[in-house]
């Protein structure tokens, strides 16, 4: 049922217009003799159409239109203003202030019916369009979310690809990614940066794809020459990931290149010192080493978390950024929670 508001101070006009609206069949008239009360109702309730007279004592039709159009959500409701044939100036002003169309007096049932039907159809089309816009926005949001989820899955599987030839497990990259996010959060980085490191950190060792099996999978200590080759996985990872427009891959490239740098400059590949090492590289260094120490490997048993904690504490300022160590240790409860949640073996700890 279409709700049609009629605002007119004349009882005769209200009676006439009411009867004409009822004759339409699918319309419910709502009558207001007081234009201020009519305005108040239309501000709180959304009618399908408003028919308003021009000359009214409390507030004339033009002011009514002007004030109603200023109410949020009332910019588009169709308004028919009733004017005399000789009121051209009034019509122009009403049009400028937001009248949709006019009804001339004396009101004729044919013209009334045609104009009202047209206005209702216009209103219905607008509503349909607005609904469609909302629906489309939701579809776009869903599609974007789906694309994002696919991207994340792809990145995770890419990271796993590097781990496949390495004895480390998939849960390693999940643990170290969460440790990294924890450090980022405790350093006060934005939620966006926290999410970025969570997604990019797993790719830190993807350059290992380019390391020969004989070196990568060697159970014993590497020779000097073998270690030099092993170190190239940092730059190989960077070459693999750099040049993308994706923020995640750009970040991953930086992490791959810098996560073996050491705070005191004794790391590789560039021997960067202190703050010259990208922050994300400094963060991932802590996360990666902690997880490596507390994980079982073919060449070593897993360390206990307490022993690993002590190692990190000693390494602050040397191997590691002391600020990263500090906040990592401050979040120890959460570290343990991550450690337990993503545990993949039950081997005794040293």
């Amino acid at each position, binding site marked *: 049922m279409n709700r049609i508001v009629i605002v007119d101070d004349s009882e005769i006009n209200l009676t*006439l217009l009411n009867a004409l609206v009822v004759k339409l069949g699918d319309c419910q008239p709502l009558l207001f003799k007081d234009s201020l009360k009519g305005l108040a109702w239309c501000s709180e309730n959304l009618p399908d159409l408003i028919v308003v007279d021009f000359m009214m004592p409390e507030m004339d039709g033009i002011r009514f239109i002007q004030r109603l159009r200023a109410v949020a959500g009332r910019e588009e409701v169709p308004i028919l203003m009733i004017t005399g044939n000789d009121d051209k100036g009034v019509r122009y002003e009403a049009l400028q202030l937001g009248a949709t169309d006019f009804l001339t007096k004396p009101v004729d049932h044919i013209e009334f019916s045609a104009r009202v039907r047209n206005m209702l159809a216009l209103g219905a089309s607008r509503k349909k369009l607005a609904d469609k816009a909302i629906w489309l926005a939701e579809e776009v949001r869903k599609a974007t979310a789906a694309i994002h989820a696919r991207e994340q899955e792809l990145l995770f599987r890419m990271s796993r690809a590097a781990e496949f030839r390495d004895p480390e497990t998939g849960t390693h990259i999940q643990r170290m990614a969460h440790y990294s996010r924890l450090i980022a959060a405790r350093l006060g980085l934005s939620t966006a940066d926290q999410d970025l490191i969570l997604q990019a950190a797993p790719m830190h060792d993807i350059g290992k794809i380019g390391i020969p099996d004989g070196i990568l999978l060697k159970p014993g200590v590497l020779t000097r020459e073998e270690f030099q080759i092993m170190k190239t996985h940092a730059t190989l990872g960077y070459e693999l990931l750099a040049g993308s427009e994706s923020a995640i891959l750009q970040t991953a490239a930086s992490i791959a290149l810098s996560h073996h740098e050491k705070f005191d400059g004794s790391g590789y590949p560039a021997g960067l010192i202190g703050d010259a090492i990208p922050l994300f590289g400094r963060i991932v260094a802590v996360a990666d080493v902690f997880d490596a120490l507390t994980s079982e490997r073919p060449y070593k048993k897993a360390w206990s978390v307490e022993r690993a904690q002590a190692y990190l504490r000693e390494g602050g300022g040397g191997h590691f950024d002391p600020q990263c160590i500090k906040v990592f240790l401050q979040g120890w409860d959460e570290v343990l929670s991550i450690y337990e949640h993503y545990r993949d073996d039950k081997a005794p700890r040293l």
Partner: protein
Amino acid sequence: MAASTLYDRAEALERLDGDVELFDTLAGLFVAESSGYCDALTAALASADAVALRREAHTVKSLLATFSYEAGRELAMRLERLAEEGRLDGAEALTLELIDAVKRLADELAEELV
């Protein structure tokens, strides 16, 4: 019913889709309110209130047009324009003519409703 010489009943009815019941309702309202319109015109003239006179003349103009009383509508239009310009010279005669037109229409409609 003999055709009125004052207003065009057929034309007025046609605008209402031939709804005699609606016409009679509107006619009854006009008859009941006519003295109020006349008093309002008189008061506006007496207080030399051009804005009020314009508003009352405009109201009466539309009502007389509803009943297709063309001569009365034209009187109201002339008074409305005069008042709109802020001129009240000549308004008294015009107002009295208009009041007379309202009363004549009310009388005729009242007779027809009986």
